[in-house]
């Protein structure tokens, strides 16, 4: 009893801690919140001197309308409903699945049900005053970015690259991670140390090595295509040798390889938490290492695999350097493509469009943290705790 009291901080210290935490939270969230707010406003409001004008957007409201009390109430209603739905669904399915189902459901409700409902409520006489918008908001910058400037193409490219990287990375990585966790050989130690050094390499060093062969791959691979037997086989797959520069498939392999050192370290540390008795039991029952891996180890490894997959996703999704140098304009992903907006910030509309593009890139990441917070925390600590 006495000890617990002594451990409890005094009021002064509690105030200090609380103040510091509040300061950090504002620091962490403010830049992101602010660009979200700006992206819905006309330039005159978004770049206004008065912060209140940026938040409420009087000029945007006058010119384009905005959100009223009704809309706000509906949003809050959908939000509360979503939280309730997650609680109910969590009983019958895992948390990430439940969150994903609810997210899709809420989106459908917000797009299909809310607008007609809001219009109907506004039509009721006497209630109209409550429906008048008081926060200005417009979607025109998003429309301009996604459809006017073809950002949807970059989105599809990003989707292809990240999906490819996550799939290949995990397939190759789990095999290697398992073997590295289950062997005591000296070779494995050296492999891991080499991987650690590879992880430290700046990516531009590697890209300097890829660029010349990627640009000339047509000529470089020609002998293979003209070889007697192999050449015929290759010609079945592709008439001519490919130019790897600008090929999403080649970039997927590049990103997988760059990320491989990190992936095998992380998966190895997850595999080490799976007791060896499990595969020993399977081996006693007559399984080979391959079967033990597939039937016994993988089913209990899913949390670790999902966590590692998240980090592979982040690497591929956030990459600027490799994609900017090795992809051409047609196959460009979202992050490098955004430079075309902020490099020609000549008018204030350009700047707000760049901000809308930035928010579009961030939104999926926001959802990711919401759904997978626990797995991300597990991943950050996995490497550390096991060393």
């Amino acid at each position: 009893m006495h000890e617990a009291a002594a451990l409890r901080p005094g009021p002064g210290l509690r105030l200090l801690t609380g103040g510091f935490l509040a300061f950090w939270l504002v620091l962490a969230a403010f830049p992101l919140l602010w660009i979200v707010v700006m992206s819905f406003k006309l330039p005159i409001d978004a770049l206004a001197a008065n912060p209140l004008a940026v938040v409420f957007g009087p000029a945007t409201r006058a010119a384009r309308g905005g959100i009223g009390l009704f809309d706000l109430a509906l949003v809050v209603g959908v939000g509360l409903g979503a939280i309730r739905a997650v609680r109910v669904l969590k009983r019958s399915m895992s948390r990430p699945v439940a969150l994903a189902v609810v997210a899709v459901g809420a989106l459908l409700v917000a797009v299909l049900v809310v607008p007609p409902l809001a219009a109907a409520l506004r039509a009721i006489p006497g209630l109209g005053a409550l429906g008048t918008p008081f926060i200005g908001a417009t979607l025109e910058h998003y429309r301009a970015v996604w459809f006017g400037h073809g950002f949807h193409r970059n989105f599809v490219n990003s989707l292809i690259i990240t999906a490819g990287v996550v799939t290949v990375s995990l397939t190759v990585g789990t095999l290697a991670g398992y073997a590295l966790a289950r062997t005591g050989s000296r070779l494995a130690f050296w492999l891991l140390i080499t991987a650690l050094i590879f992880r430290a390499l700046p990516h531009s060093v590697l890209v300097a090595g890829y660029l010349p062969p990627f640009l000339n791959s047509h000529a470089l691979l020609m002998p293979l295509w003209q070889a007697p037997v192999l050449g015929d086989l290759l010609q079945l797959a592709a008439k001519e040798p490919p130019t790897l520069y600008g090929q999403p498939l080649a970039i997927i392999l590049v990103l997988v390889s760059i990320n491989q050192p990190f992936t095998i370290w992380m998966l190895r540390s997850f595999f080490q938490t799976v007791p060896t008795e499990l595969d020993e039991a399977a081996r006693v029952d007559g399984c080979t290492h391959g079967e033990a891996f597939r039937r016994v180890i993988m089913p209990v490894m899913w949390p670790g695999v999902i966590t590692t997959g998240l980090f592979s996703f982040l690497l591929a999704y956030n990459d600027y350097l490799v994609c900017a140098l090795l992809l051409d304009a047609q196959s460009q992903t979202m992050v490098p493509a955004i430079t075309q907006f902020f490099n020609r910030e000549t008018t204030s509309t350009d700047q707000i469009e760049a901000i809308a593009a930035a928010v579009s890139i961030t939104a999926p990441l926001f959802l990711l943290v919401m759904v997978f917070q626990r797995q991300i925390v597990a991943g950050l600590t996995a490497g550390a705790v096991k060393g």
Partner: protein
Amino acid sequence: MSDAMKPRTFFLFVGPSLALMLVFIAIPLVSVFVQSFHVEQPVYRQVETERCTPGFPAPICTKETRTASVIGADGRPVTQRVFVGFDTYRVLLAPERLAAAFAPGGGGWRALLTIDFYKALRFTLTFTLITLPLVIGLGLAIAIAVDSVVQSLRGPIIFVSLLPFIITPVIGALAIRWLFVGDGILTRAIEFFLERDIAVFAQGWSIELLMLFYRVWHVAPFAFVVFYAALQTVNQDSLDAALVDGASRFERLRYVILPHLAPLIAFVALIHLMDAYRVFDEVIGFSSEAHVISLQWLTFHYLTPEGSADRSIARASASAMLTMVGIVLLLVPLLRRTWREHRRLESQH
């Protein structure tokens, strides 16, 4: 029962990963090494032309030889690879200008930092070394603060704290830049307090300050999560013992909690060292290339075709090799420690 894998099985499992790392990491490294000693140049040949002007009794003819580049069948100049030794490195490192800068009256550091490579090296090193203690300090402070907060608030706090970490680096840098660029909201706020006009993006030091701030903001959550997880495993018995001995709150932090966190502080420092040395996205996000550049940006710059100038692969390769030497030098002490630890563990078995 020793269940060690047979070498054959081990290689079957590790094979695909090994092959990828060999083809896409090891071989490119070798080829960058080779490229840094060669340059691609057009092939020239001597063309002899005879020019005649009418004259009497015979036309006056002059013969002259010119050099012209050889045009290939595809209409482009034919190029060949020439071994140039350390020439490209000499262009980058500019030893003559280095010597001139430190000769009497040469301008010293100021003159040195006009050379791109030294400018990039200076920024990369100061960036790495300044952010390191800040990241660890801030991460530790948040971890200790969150550890003293009621359980129900911790989830939401971790959620908000993860946002700066998870965000795309270029986008995060842009988000902070937009607060300050031109008449951004925070520039206006600072002007209001200072009562004079400021331009954050007009000089190097203020951009550099923002870049440092951005990196600490971006990485501190990672340090926080690692330290926070470790705080949950602090041995309660040693805390109680310290309490019985009359240790103050600070003493408990200094003598019980920090030693417990020491290996993790080393881990975060190692990861941060590797990542901060690669600083690149900040240069793009803040468009700082006119004032502040980093080593990795320098290689990127040489690899980007600009206007009529083609990519200069040789320079990029040389600057890539120099960048790599730098990170190896930074890592050697850490790797030697790991190796000694490994030997120690092995001799115990």
